[in-house]
């Protein structure tokens, strides 16, 4: 775009395409004719039919578009960064976090805090771990820096709470030991949704 064109503030005449609409009747007779024409043509029922069809689909074919939140939830993209999950090692069931403190250090809202100690097996044990979700901005840095793939973002996006500060403890985020089999590996930030193929539509250009 040249500067000239850019400066042209006359919006009326650039490359707008005008729709090929019929002329609006001007005479009273013409207007009356249009009303009669629309009435007898049954255009109205076209719309009603669509409604009826979808109602039928919903009631009898179990194909409803409305999501009954909070009873139902939409699947969420794996890239979505919601409340953190703490994962376990699949082989031993031990939590993966080694207590390195890198997430605590990198967190730009300073909302992670952890206590560690020397345990009976001469290992570093995470004795306490919290994230303040009143401060967390879900930036994902903690998950990014974690050397053990221990802290990841999960899909729990409901963070409303009665207080400004709402904390999660280690146990709240840790995969329950009996749900270890269902623990899903986090695909990472560039990951596509598992149903990505289904979601693909033709691009508008093809119409």
């Amino acid at each position, binding site marked *: 775009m040249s500067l000239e064109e850019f400066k042209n503030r006359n919006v009326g005449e650039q490359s707008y395409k005008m729709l090929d609409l019929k002329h609006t009747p001007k005479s009273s007779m013409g207007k009356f004719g249009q009303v009669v024409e629309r009435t007898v043509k049954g255009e109205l029922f076209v719309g009603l039919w669509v409604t009826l069809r979808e109602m039928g689909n919903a009631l009898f074919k179990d194909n409803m578009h409305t999501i009954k939140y909070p009873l139902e939830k939409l699947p969420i993209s794996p890239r979505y960064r919601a409340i953190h999950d703490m994962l376990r090692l699949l082989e031993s069931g031990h939590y993966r976090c*080694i*207590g*390195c*403190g*890198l997430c*605590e*250090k990198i967190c730009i809202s300073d909302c992670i*805090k*952890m*206590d*560690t*100690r*020397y345990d009976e097996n*001469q*290992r*570093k*044990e995470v004795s*306490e*771990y*919290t994230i303040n979700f009143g401060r967390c901005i879900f930036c994902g840095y903690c998950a990014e820096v974690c*050397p*053990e793939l221990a802290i990841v973002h999960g899909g729990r996006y409901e963070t409303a709470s009665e207080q400004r500060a709402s904390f999660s403890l280690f146990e709240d985020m840790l995969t329950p030991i009996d749900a270890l089999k269902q623990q899903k590996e986090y695909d990472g930030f560039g990951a596509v949704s598992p149903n990505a193929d289904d979601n693909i539509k033709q691009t508008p250009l093809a119409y």
Partner: protein
Amino acid sequence: MTAKKIDTNNITLTIDGKNCQGSKGDTILTIARANDIYIPTMCYLTKVEPIASCRMCVVNVEGVDGMILSCQEKAVDGAVVTTSNDAIDKQRQSIMKLYDVNHPLECGVCDKSGECDLQNKTMEFDVDQQSFTTRDQHRPVQNWGFISYDPALCIMCEKCVHVCTQIVGDDVLAISAGGYNSTIINTKQDEQCSNCGECMSVCPVGALVSTDFKYSSNAWELEKIPASCSHCSATCQMSYEIKDTAIGNRQKKIYRVTNNYEFSSLCGAGRFGFDYANESVGKDSEAFTRAVEAVKKAESINFTATITNEEAMILQSIKQKYQTKLICNEARGYQKFLEAFCSMTGKSLYSGNLKNLSTSRGIIVFGTRINDDNPMVKYHITMASRRERARVAYMHPIEDASIQSIVTQFIKYEVGSEEGVAALLAHTLLDSQKPTKAVQAYLDDLDIGNLSAESNIGEEELDALLHSFDKKRGFTLVVGADIYTHPKAENIAKLLGLIEAYSDFEVLLVPPATNALGVALLCDLDDDAQGYSVGYNAKANFVLSALGDGDLDMPALNQQEGSFTSLDKRVVPTNAGLSYGGYILNDIANALGIHTINTIDYTVKLPIEKGYQSIEFDDLPDYYNSIGEEHRGYLLKQSRYKKDGKLDEVSTLPTYDGSVVYHCNTNNQFSTFTNSCEQLQTEALLRGSAQFASITKLQDGAKIKFELDGVLYERVFMIDTSMKGTVAINPSFDMGLSSSTVSSYRFSQPKLETMDS
């Protein structure tokens, strides 16, 4: 003459194109560091002799083939040095590659992470992959009491071994060589070393760490508060490292103590004895009102010398306003001693200091069990012994096994005969000197044969002593707490003053408690208490206590800011590691109309005539420069003193026949404060030799009680096989407020009563 001397000592060299000044005998590395030029090192530790095990410090010197180790090569005048080029960098990188071979990838949990030399230099020299490897060994972690050792992380830099031998003098660590299987071994696993933690502090990696601190926090989460150790008069430089106690408890807690290990040291009490704060104290205004009333009506104030200079000033102000008597048993004897000493030397302070002690070639230790009384003095004697091959004569009634390796001559004297010993020493050391006629006459008049017989020091021992100092330079006489409380302390002080005034010896009068020198200079102390009394960490009718057991709580020294006067005659600042919520001494002074907003406002008012300077607390420097020169606070100014001392005749020496008890705290224990620290917990025992047991007819493990200075001690007796003779050692660190009552001569003969168990 001096100007010329400096000239010949000065050398100039060019390092990386920069003109650098240094003096003869300096290494290239020292001169580079003094001139802010960086040369990477892995094994260099300023406070010990160059170790030269890493080869990271290589440089090129023009005209010299090959690379040179800058840490041990003495600089030559006019040399042109290059610290970095492709070949050197390549060599450094390959050294780092070797260090990294099989190094466990456990920075994530390692305590050293974030302040690890290996981590830093691996990054610095871009070692991002490992191209060779070696067979891995199973090398489990070893727990050595306070310290744990992980051989897998050890890079065999040998710093730990060198500090243990050259500074601490315990010779506990050794190297077991064997290529990649080399490790450090602890040769005293079961006997325990002195637990000073020096090895751990210099370890550049996470191989030696504190068992208590291990895995409890990452280094970068801790906030460093610069401070001075409050346990003994060395007042060593250190930092409290603090952080929230836990997630659910935002109260700060001291996690560990670190220090500037490159240049200075700590003993175990300083390093592991930090948790003595008087915690969770609120403002109890009723108790405060009572305290103010008590101080107002008190006729005497008893206190310990474990206070800051500023608090000493406050007490002195109270004295000036109310004519209250100030009683500080720890410092009073020292004060009188110092005054008598100075009346002979004509100078306001003694001349010895730690630095000169560490470079002395001849050292006499007199009247102190130095390893227990002041470990830092012992470290400096060790340095002299190991580096300068100093002759060290240890004069004491009890032999001390823990300093055997540095003592070249043990001179045992009879308990109580210190005055005679001092006279003999003066006589011996002034032999070839030229004192005044009066002094000479006094010395000539001494009945040496008799003194030698009574004190049980053979004349041949003194001859040997004198002989061993032949052709040496740099002498220090270390004098300790036995003497300050001796009934004839004043005359002993004068005799020792002669040695300072007329011989080559520098005398170091080791203050018997943290700030005994400060209190001695700042307070007009009285001898005897009278009437209603207020105690500050001491027994009295109304007690202000930082131990949490008094009538009004006071902050402990790790909760206070202020300054100490150290044995180096240095005024050093200390800061509050932890906060304190209650009332402090200054609040009481304010309520009594002695107004100052903060305690540290007294720092600038410290009396100039005593050698202090008028510097605001916040302006006191607190650092070591790049070559380790100490810039902590300032040194007291030495001034003239009235030289009017008159020597008394040496009286008949007292005799202590039979069993004797010596009052002395044990390794890493100094006071009730160290005793309240979790890691330092030990049982207070009366320890004596088998001979002591046989003359007192005590069984090992017998329960006994006895009274000393009006304090009742209940003790378990233990036979210590490392001890000899008829003197047993009795500590007082567990006696709480009563420990301040100990005021008389350290040797005594209490009646030992066996208790039924």
